[in-house]
């Protein structure tokens, strides 16, 4: 099949881990509003950004993703009271680990997108895709150091 | 504890009575202090008014000399000096950039390790109430004394970290120790306007007058202060104020060290009470008569 993505820098595959309540709905809204954005993104839906295990990100890179986007509800808006705080705290520690593993931190993006922010989803995805495309092509993300 | 003494300019000049009485009282208490060698003026209100860096650098020199001479604490009996030393200490301790600039200029290190005490703090914390009490030979029973704190002893609380800024009690506690009665009145912490004493005498007389008339109204025989600037305004300007408002005040104003000295049995002359402008003979006679 033509137009395969993920194999090269011109057309990288990006995996997004998003929460069910805010960001997933925000992405849906972009669709209902017929907004257009880069098609490199593959969304994996989770109950809450607090469920996003840092090891998912490692796995995503291992399986060839060139970028990982993590997005949940805005701080304070979490459907589950405080899930996004946990993920935020965890993420801070995890950045160091990723860095240690040799991942260019430019390849990981963390954002808050609410259910009404279809436009923010579009701009985050588009900008992140552009950014990933601009990074030097590496076959193995973990050796990019 | 090695204790440094920072007299400041006033205690060597217009308020020499404060130093005389202070040294006498410490002698009785058997406490040794050592003047900071070759100290300089802290810059008083002029420096912080128009040149912030200077207002830190001038006191810093004294602090650094004291620290480098192995002192841990400084007694600054003048409220204005202690306020400037404390403020400089606070800024040097919290602003590394400024500290570097200043220690470079002084060509001396300073670690902001020094503690600074004003007179009241020193008497209550370092000397201690029990110690003071044990030296009282001539209780001042029946004498009504108003403590005037003014602003510099307690404000701003963030830096002074001493007593309650609205209802201070430390000086009243010392007054009570001597056996005298501490008179409560609302203007305890209202400013006398010291910094503009020479340049804006009318304003200062209005402020000081308010305080003095209020004290008078509350029936005090005597005012105690722990600041040479307060003293200048309350004592030196008292005649002028009486003239301006055509109402007699006649309130002797003495230093807290003089009050303690009297209760320790020292003579008014030893304490240089005769150096004040407002005549205190009447109340002194009362005190001396009672002890005889």
């Amino acid at each position, binding site marked *: 099949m033509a137009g395969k993505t993920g194999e090269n820098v011109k057309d990288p595959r990006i995996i997004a881990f998003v929460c069910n309540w805010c960001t997933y709905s925000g992405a849906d809204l972009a669709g209902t509003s017929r907004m257009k954005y880069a098609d490199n993104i593959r969304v994996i839906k989770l109950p809450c950004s607090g469920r996003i295990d840092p090891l998912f990100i490692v796995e995503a890179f291992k399986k060839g993703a060139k970028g990982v986007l993590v997005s949940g509800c805005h701080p304070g808006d979490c459907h589950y009271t405080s899930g996004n705080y946990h993920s935020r705290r965890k993420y801070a520690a995890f950045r160091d680990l990723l860095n240690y593993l040799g991942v260019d931190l430019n390849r990981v993006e963390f954002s808050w997108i609410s259910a009404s922010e279809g436009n923010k989803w579009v701009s985050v995805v588009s900008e992140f895709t552009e950014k990933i495309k601009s990074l030097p092509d590496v076959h193995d993300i973990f050796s990019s150091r | 504890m090695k204790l440094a003494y920072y007299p400041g300019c006033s205690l060597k000049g217009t308020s020499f009575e404060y130093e005389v009485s202070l040294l006498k009282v410490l002698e009785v208490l058997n406490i040794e202090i050592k003047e900071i060698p070759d100290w300089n*003026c802290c810059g008083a209100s002029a420096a912080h008014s128009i040149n912030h860096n200077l207002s830190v650098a001038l006191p810093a020199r004294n602090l650094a000399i004291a620290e480098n001479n192995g002192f841990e604490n400084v007694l600054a009996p003048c409220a204005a000096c202690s306020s400037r030393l404390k403020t400089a200490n606070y800024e040097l301790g919290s602003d590394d950039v400024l500290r570097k600039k200043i220690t470079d200029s002084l060509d001396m290190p300073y670690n902001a390790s020094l503690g600074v005490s004003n007179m009241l703090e020193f008497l209550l914390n370092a000397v201690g109430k029990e110690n003071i009490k044990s030296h009282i030979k001539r209780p001042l029973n029946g004498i009504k004394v108003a403590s005037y704190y003014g602003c510099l002893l307690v404000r701003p609380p963030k830096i002074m970290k001493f007593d309650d800024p609205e209802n201070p009690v430390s000086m009243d506690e010392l007054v009570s120790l001597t056996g005298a009665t501490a008179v409560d009145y609302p203007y305890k912490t209202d400013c006398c306007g010291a910094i503009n004493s020479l340049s804006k005498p009318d304003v200062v007389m209005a402020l000081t007058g308010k305080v003095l008339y209020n004290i008078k109204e509350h029936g005090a025989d005597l005012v105690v202060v722990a600041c040479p600037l307060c003293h200048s305004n309350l004592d030196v300007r008292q005649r002028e104020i009486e003239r301006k408002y055509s109402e007699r005040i006649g309130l002797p104003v003495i230093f807290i060290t003089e009050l303690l000295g009297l209760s320790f049995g020292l003579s008014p002359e030893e304490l240089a009470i005769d150096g004040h402008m407002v005549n205190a003979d009447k109340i002194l006679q009362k005190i001396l008569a009672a002890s005889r």
Partner: protein
Amino acid sequence: MKTIINEQDRRNFVSQVETMLHDKLAKCYQCGKCSAGCPVNFEMDYTPNQIIKMTELGMQDPVLNSKTIWLCVSCNTCSTRCPKGFEVAGIMDVLREIATRKGIESKTEKEIQVFHKVFLDNVKSNGRIFELELVGKYRLKTKRLFRDMFLAPKMIEKGKLRMSGDKVSAINSIAKIFRDFE
């Protein structure tokens, strides 16, 4: 009074003041408690809270030429009671310093300005204050020769005014401080 706000000038002035003050003008919510307790408010042309607002609006000229900044006696009543913990007394210092640097001569409060200058000159040359010299120079500069003079004889009699002053021996170290920071 009418003020036309020039955004660039406003920002410059605000940022100059805030940098020197280490505090944010926007913290002040104009409750007026500072002015309520200020002992010299009765002589001021603008209340302390007005000075803060005017500074925030970039009204540089009226602020730096105000009587208020010179009349302030640094008693810290305002800062102590400010519910927002704003450095009110501090802003007065900062504004005086800016006015001094700019060489602005107060039309009404010249004596106060002169006093501070003479005081620091005295420190500069002696390292300590020699009161008689201080008073003398101040009187000369303000041409108010006779003010307070009636106090002098009695003060001399009481030993309060000494005829000579002490000096810091390492006076060059004082000179250096002034060189570095004046």
